[in-house]
């Protein structure tokens, strides 16, 4: 290792050249990266429930939908109906739109002069008052329409359901649809659906570069405050850019899309990577202040601090790589990018940083006496205090843990998409407006497996539809039963459902005579063995959604009997099972992170030191989630990442433990050793906390709620780790590590 270090230092220009070339290559990879705004990336792609959902989409051609609600004083007047007709036609003309269902082209079957007429509900422009009266009457009386599916009962709004080919980009479709609606409708309108959410994600992700710049500037500012030298900014800047570029480039060359939650990765890379520079440069400047020359300072920096940085980098990367076990693409991507970026930062800090220091002139550092500066003096006093009162400090820590457990018990998980966007965003505003007008803004799809030509089953299905509407937060329900109900009434003149199998089949023949294969198979498959029930629901929390689905399941059992089985799917249902996946990912990533960090630290340093440090980190995590519960912050995908992130990020605390153990082996008393460790390592811990905290603070500017919440909680976490490292950890060392055994390798830290 020593020979390698010398060889690299002799060839500093080659080293710099290598990093420039490699970073350029990585930059090309980063440019190849495709940003994916789809909400599908929030869901586990290969989960059996997702596969089932895709199969249902294929069978029934449900595709992706956008709902647009048009508001007016009265939509059932000629001018407005003409505008709706023109808008419907324009929307149909957008490439990617497969179908538009609106008031003006909804089919209507009616009797006139003994003939059964099939026509458009609004047959022509400028309908007469008589025709409008007929339309109103039909909307109020027709079984399939009377729940306000196409227009509000008071005429204050009209709804358009726009089906979109899933192979088209949803955010682009949302923009196109919005443009067409603005051009054709003079008045207020609101929209919701996956395309609208994708557009919102696109808007949010445009802010990521600015966030990264803010993080970088804050980190560099803290580094300058610490080192008071341009070198303290320039050299870390180079190292951080390497980490960022290589992280992005690696994913770009692998063809992995950049997804919403991966916004955390660049900030985490910058924050964690800066701590490597902090430790290494801290040692470098210390050696210069002792009067040593540049070459000696670099060798001592690498020899004494390099291994610690290497181990920290490994430990943090390992905890990030635990996210690769997640079922969710964006969590896996976030973990991989962060791990690669941190390894790149570590590599750059151990190879590029020394090379740059070797090439650049050494800063003039005033020789420092043995007397502590202001921060170190205060830390020394803290260390002395802890030395006198370790047990009360530990008891305080235990009390905080107990309080935190109360907070943890209050945590409410919520993986619903609505919780991810600000309440004042266009997507959420539109969602609430559509819910009010339409009766729901998202759907639960219930697939009925049975004989869909059995009159008894169809009667049960109709009963299900009627009774489902009385469940809170459930809106209109559509199925083959409602279509047959309307058709039977028109054909026979009698309310109710067809009573015999033959009549069901023959009335379905009439239904099929007016629709294409896709129209027919949108409600039932071709051999009538599966039917789709579309249930419109309000967007509520995942726990409330689970309750709704449980009630719908019980109602289905009661109304359909043994003649059919049901399965639930749809975005709403998938969000409710996402919670289970997120909790599972949280448990796995946290456990694995603890284990991996423990193993890595134990192999290089000491098991006992690693264990004591991990206990302290665990304390911080409990505190972190306790705060989340006490402040009513919901547990979601991003907060599930915090555990493993905190373990990885907080690993720098072990520097204090190791310093204590070294001083104990030098013969200092436990209390004196702790005082030294807090005074010396503590300074790095303080500046690392500020640097990390400053970096993560940039996340709070994100309009993506989980990322902003994560940013706030990570600020709390890094400072909690810092405070715990300077209080709980020294106290724990005094109680549990009074007589440490010889470590495998000695590592010297500030």
């Amino acid at each position, binding site marked *: 290792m020593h020979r390698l270090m010398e060889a690299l230092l002799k060839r500093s220009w080659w080293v710099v050249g290598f990093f420039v070339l490699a970073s350029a290559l990585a930059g090309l990879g980063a440019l190849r990266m495709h940003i994916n705004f789809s909400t599908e990336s929030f869901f586990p792609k290969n989960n059996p429930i997702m596969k089932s959902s895709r199969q249902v989409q294929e069978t029934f051609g449900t595709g992706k939908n956008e709902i647009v609600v048009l508001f007016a004083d009265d939509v059932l007047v000629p001018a407005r109906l003409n505008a709706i007709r023109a808008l419907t036609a324009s929307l149909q003309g957008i490439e990617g739109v497969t179908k538009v269902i609106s008031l003006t082209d909804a089919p209507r079957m009616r009797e006139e002069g003994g003939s059964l007429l099939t026509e458009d509900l609004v047959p022509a422009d400028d309908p007469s008052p008589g025709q409008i009266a007929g339309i109103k009457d039909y909307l109020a009386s027709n079984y399939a329409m009377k729940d306000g599916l196409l227009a509000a009962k008071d005429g204050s709004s009209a709804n358009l359901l726009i089906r979109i080919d899933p192979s088209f980009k949803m955010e682009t479709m949302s923009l196109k649809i919005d443009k067409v609606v603005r051009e054709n409708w003079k008045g207020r309108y609101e929209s919701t659906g996956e395309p609208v959410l994708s557009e919102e994600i696109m808007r949010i992700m445009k802010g990521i570069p600015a966030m990264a710049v803010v993080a970088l500037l804050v980190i560099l500012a803290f580094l300058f405050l610490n080192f008071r030298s341009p070198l303290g900014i320039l050299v870390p800047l180079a190292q951080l850019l390497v980490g960022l570029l290589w992280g992005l480039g690696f994913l770009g060359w692998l063809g992995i899309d950049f997804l919403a939650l991966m916004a955390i990765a660049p900030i985490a890379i910058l924050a964690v990577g800066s701590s490597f520079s902090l430790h290494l440069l801290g040692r470098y400047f210390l050696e210069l202040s002792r009067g040593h020359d540049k070459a000696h300072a670099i060798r001592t920096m690498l020899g004494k601090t390099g291994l610690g940085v290497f181990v920290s980098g490994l430990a943090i990367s390992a905890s990030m790589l635990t996210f690769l076990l997640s079922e969710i693409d964006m969590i896996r991507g976030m973990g991989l990018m962060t791990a690669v970026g941190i390894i790149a930062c570590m590599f750059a800090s151990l190879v590029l940083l020394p090379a740059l220091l070797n090439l650049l002139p050494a800063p003039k550092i005033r020789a420092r006496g043995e007397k502590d500066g202001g921060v170190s003096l205060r830390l020394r006093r803290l260390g002395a205090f802890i030395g006198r009162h370790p047990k009360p400090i530990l008891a305080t820590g235990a009390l905080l843990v107990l309080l935190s457990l109360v907070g943890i018990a209050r945590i409410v998980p919520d993986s619903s998409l609505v919780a991810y966007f600000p309440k004042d965003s266009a997507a959420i505003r539109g969602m609430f407006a559509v819910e009010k007008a339409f009766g729901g803004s998202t759907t639960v799809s219930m697939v009925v497996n049975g004989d869909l030509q059995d009159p008894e089953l169809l009667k049960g299905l109709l009963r299900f539809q009627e009774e489902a509407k009385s469940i809170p937060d459930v809106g209109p329900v559509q199925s083959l039963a409602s279509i047959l109900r309307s058709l039977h009434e028109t*054909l026979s003149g009698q309310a109710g459902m067809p009573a015999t199998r033959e009549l069901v089949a023959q009335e379905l023949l009439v239904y099929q005579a007016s629709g294409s294969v896709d129209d027919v198979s949108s409600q039932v498959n071709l051999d009538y063995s599966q039917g789709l029930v579309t249930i419109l629901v309000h967007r509520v929390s995942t726990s409330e959604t689970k309750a709704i689905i449980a009630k719908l399941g019980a109602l289905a059992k009661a109304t359909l009997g043994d003649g059919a089985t049901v399965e639930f799917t749809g975005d709403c249902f998938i969000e409710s099972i996402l919670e289970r996946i997120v909790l599972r990912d949280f448990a796995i990533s946290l456990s694995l992170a603890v284990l991996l960090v423990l193993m890595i630290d134990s192999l290089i340093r000491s098991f006992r030191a690693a264990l004591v440090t991990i206990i302290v980190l665990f304390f911080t995590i409990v505190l972190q989630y306790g705060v989340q519960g006490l402040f009513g912050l919901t547990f979601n995908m991003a907060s599930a990442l915090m555990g493993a992130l905190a373990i990885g990020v907080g690993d720098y605390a072990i520097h204090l433990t190791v310093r204590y153990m070294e001083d104990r082996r030098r013969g200092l008393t436990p209390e004196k050793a702790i005082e030294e460790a807090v005074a010396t390592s503590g300074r790095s811990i303080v500046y690392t906390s500020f640097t990390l905290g400053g970096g993560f603070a940039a996340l709070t500017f994100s309009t993506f709620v989980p990322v902003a919440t994560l940013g706030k909680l990570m600020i709390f976490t890094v400072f909690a780790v810092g405070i715990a490292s300077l209080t709980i950890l020294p106290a724990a060392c005094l109680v549990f590590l009074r007589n440490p055994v010889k470590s495998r390798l000695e590592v010297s830290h500030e």
Partner: protein
Amino acid sequence: MNSYGCLRKSLATAMVAATLALLAASPLQAQAALSGQEVMDKVYNSPKPKGSVLTMAMVITKNGKSLSRTLTTWTTGDVAKGETEKTLMKFLSPADVKGSGFLNLKKPDGATESLLWLPALGKVRRLGSGASDQDQAFFGSDFTNRDINGFVRADFAYAVDSFAGGIYAVTATPKKALGYEKLVYHVDSSTWKYAKIDYWRGGKLAKSQTVAYDKVQGYDMPTRILMSSASGSSTELSFTGYKLDQELGDQYFTERFLKQ
């Protein structure tokens, strides 16, 4: 040989070569010289039976599931000749739709009368005609009513795209809104029947129809028609019974016969 003699010899050789080339090319040249309109005139004018009774099986397939029906159709008349087009369809299977029927009478002036008979309902319903009837799907299949009834020759402008291997590719561009942007016919010049039609909508291929023929009572009749849609569904019509050149009197196109 003097120079004048050489020149004469060269000229003669060239003329023979040119004549041979022209003779060799002439059948192709003559064929390729047909315009799109001429090709389609031959298609439309190819012999067709006057009245017919056809039995067919219709199988609609999508996502691995299929729906099968068999039906018999009685057809007679040609609106282009000033006659009333009469079509009666009766379903033979499956059992739950057996006996259901549709009767359609289209007069030369365009007026249409349609009757629907559902045995389970026990009454005949008169259906009103809508402007978009022809563009509606034929019993939930990939065919539209217009695909089944046939297009009107005069509604399109025709142009030959290519002629190779005896097959004309003719693009038919509608002169009015007919639900498609264009149709591309692939016409076999030996029989003047189209083997394939591609239907285009919105710049994309929406569906394709392929037809197999056989000689029945001297006519080239379709035995199998397959319509494949870009959305993944397909509908196959297989003809299993032919009674051609039938004198189908008015008694076949009445409410009474519909209910039998």
